């Protein structure tokens, strides 16, 4: 057994009556990747925040190389050789990659920043971990995925032997995930201890050595990867048997209905070219592609947020969708990939957000119908199994899964004919994922046409009837998902054509 670099002993964090973390004891070893797994709200983030010096533990202790340590601030934790890379980006867009990597840690002489050294040191870090980004470029001109890699490089610029990743792949596409995994194996070979938090079972099974499962703030178990598989892990996580990750389709209603939407040579010179497809009532059509392939832009155009050329035909009638208002009038609903920015008003209550798209509809002559709204909210909370204290709680305080259900609820109130879902399960735990999938099934059985955009290949393959692959702003392939393999799809998504 390798050396224990970091250990928690009976770690607890209580917020009033709420026991966010309750008695956590884990050993993190040198040269190992240790994954902490659990649903949203299980206490993973709180645990990381205690290791990062953001929260002080209520009880219990943290041992560093066997010695008791107390982190009073993030700086304390960093000075103790713990590097944490959080999901949220903390980069300045107007500074270069190099300047960002050494922000607040600039090499200097007599208080004057040594720009040459910044550049050379940054290049050294980027090269060491094989991150293909120039150190001189402004961060503002990078894609979200590239920024995430810069954030990682920034975290690694401090001397450390414990590196913590908090859901690092949530905004990465597959090629960047490979870069990340190379970084992690590089860190492993340097005999560092890696703590990894993620929802994605496939990648957890790929890179972890040890896995600790948490549920409702409680420590459940720590297992070696070799001795386990996805199913028992999920059972431990949700605390009940889950026979399937995806709800099965009701085959008795497998007949697809009338043409709901027909898109002909949709083009926006900057975003996508010549996109054509049909969508039927009761059908789920998947859109897959790497980050930047133009999937979301097509959906934004269908919803009136991006100008387009070409034709959109809804129920046999040609429509010109210039604004979301027109799209909504034509029965389209759009759950965007950024629920916090585009889907919800975080400061406002569950009640306001559930009725966000329908309050005008159930109003009479400009007056809000309070009673109808309240019953609608209560119904949504029950139907979607949204876990809230009461309907006046602000949605900003809810977990990702519950927030996403509220975005869905806000649209389902309008009973849309065409529902566009862009990454509907990003940052959502397994239990809530299953519930969202079940809602999709339920809707299609009632005749709703669904477009499902996702970067998770298993998700689009299992949920869709047909699958479109986009690459470099073009639709390159249509598949029937029955009997399809992931490799077949990836060939088209990456463009690495095998010439046979």
């Amino acid at each position, binding site marked *: 057994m390798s050396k224990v670099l970091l250990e928690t002993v009976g770690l607890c964090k209580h917020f009033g009556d709420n026991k966010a973390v309750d008695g956590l004891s884990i050993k993190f070893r040198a040269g190992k990747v240790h994954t902490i797994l659990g649903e949203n709200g299980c206490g993973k983030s709180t645990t990381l925040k205690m290791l990062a010096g953001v929260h002080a533990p209520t009880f219990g202790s943290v041992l560093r190389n066997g010695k008791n340590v107390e982190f009073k601030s993030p700086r304390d934790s960093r000075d103790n050789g713990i590097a944490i890379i959080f999901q949220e980006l903390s980069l300045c867009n107007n500074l270069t990659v190099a300047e960002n990597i050494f922000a607040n840690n600039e090499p200097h002489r007599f208080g004057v920043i040594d720009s040459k050294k910044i550049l050379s040191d940054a290049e050294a870090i980027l090269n060491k971990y094989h991150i293909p980004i120039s150190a001189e470029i402004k961060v503002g001109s990078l894609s979200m995925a590239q920024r995430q890699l810069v954030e990682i490089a920034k975290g690694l610029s401090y001397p450390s032997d414990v590196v913590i990743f908090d859901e690092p792949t949530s905004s990465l596409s597959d090629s960047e995930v490979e870069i990340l995994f190379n970084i992690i194996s590089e860190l492993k070979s340097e005999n560092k201890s890696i703590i990894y938090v993620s929802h994605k079972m496939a990648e957890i099974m790929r890179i972890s050595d040890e896995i600790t499962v948490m549920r409702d703030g409680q420590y459940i178990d720590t297992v070696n990867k070799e001795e386990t598989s996805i199913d028992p892990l999920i059972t431990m996580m949700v605390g009940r048997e889950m026979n399937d990750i995806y709800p099965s389709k009701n085959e008795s209603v497998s007949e697809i209905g009338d043409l709901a939407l027909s898109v002909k040579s949709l083009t926006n010179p900057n975003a996508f070219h010549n996109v054509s497809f049909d969508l039927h009532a009761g059908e789920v059509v998947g859109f897959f592609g790497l980050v930047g392939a133009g999937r979301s832009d097509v959906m934004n155009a269908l919803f009136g947020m991006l100008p387009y050329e070409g034709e959109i035909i809804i129920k046999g009638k040609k429509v010109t969708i210039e604004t979301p208002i027109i799209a909504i009038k034509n029965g389209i609903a759009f759950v965007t990939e950024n629920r916090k920015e585009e889907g919800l008003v975080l*400061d406002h209550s569950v009640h306001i957000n559930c009725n*966000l798209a329908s309050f005008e509809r159930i109003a009479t002559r400009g*007056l809000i119908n309070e009673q109808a709204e309240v019953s609608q909210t209560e119904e949504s909370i029950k139907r979607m199994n949204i876990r809230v204290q009461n309907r006046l709680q602000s949605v900003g305080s809810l977990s990702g899964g519950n927030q996403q259900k509220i975005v869905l609820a806000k649209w389902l109130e309008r009973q849309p004919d065409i529902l566009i879902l862009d990454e509907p399960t990003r940052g959502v735990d397994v239990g809530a994922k299953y519930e969202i999938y079940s809602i999709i099934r339920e809707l299609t059985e009632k005749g709703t046409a669904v477009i499902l955009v996702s970067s998770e290949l298993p998700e689009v393959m299992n949920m869709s009837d047909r699958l479109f692959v986009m690459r470099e702003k073009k639709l390159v392939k249509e598949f029937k998902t029955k009997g399809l393999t992931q490799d077949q799809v990836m060939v088209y998504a990456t463009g690495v054509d095998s010439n046979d």
Partner: protein
Amino acid sequence: MIKGFFREYAGILGGLLILCLVSSFLSEYFWSVNNVTNIVLQTSIVAIVAFGMTYAILLAGIDLSVGSIVALTGLVLVIGLTNGLPFSLMLPIALLVAVFCGFSNGLITTWLGVHPFIVTMSFMGIWRGVAMLTSDGQAVSLYDNAPFEYIFNGYLFGIPFPIIILLSMIALNHFVLSKTTFGRRVYIVGGNPEAAAYSGINVSKTTIYSYMITGLMAGVGGVMLASRMFSAQPTAANGMELDAIAACVLGGTSLTGGRGTIIGTLIGALIIAVLSNVMSLMNVDFFVSLIVKGVVILIAVGIDVYKNKRKAA
């Protein structure tokens, strides 16, 4: 309902009560009917202008031009009346001018996509300049016009008419913001304009309408101020925008948008009025009173920020 009301406004309501209590010790004259009426009369104009300002701030915007609109509206009204036009014609015209000023603010803000601070700051100068030009920089007095004088000096059922106007503006704006779909749109657009657009709300229209209401309220204030002074002055209400903003902020309206109420703004305006009143009763030097007002606003905002931080943690 009543319980909810007290919970929501506990902080500032408590502040107002403490202020009144301290004031009653400092001056025995404070609680006299005359003085209390005086406070309400004094605050009525600023409060109504602040109600309009609440819409702008709820949208995470601001309207720096309200003081100039107050002056311009008063001038339009009084110049019309001195030229023999009837009050029943000039009142709507003056208010329309105010609405037009607000419309300009809203239109250019949404059209150029510039922060309303810049747009309304420009219009603050423009409307003030127009007011100066139309009156040659001179005050225009007007006596012996009964309906005009009645606005601020009349009584209805024994109650001073400006208080009636104040009460109806409270009711009107509270109703609009809390009971209508337009009010809901204001809160949503202010809370998250992107989510509002993606939910099918017309953000530009909501913004323009809101600034029109801000203008209208400044217009109502302008008519009242002219009636109170028996004249219109191109320099009137200079700096009133700051008092209105202070009332909103004291009343818990968040400058980041989406949070605030008319009742809060009313209490905020009353706090400022009581403070000014008690300091003048005690003959506190005017310059000192400016400092005291500034400090009180900072303390109130500090408490609000602290409370929100604790709620978030």
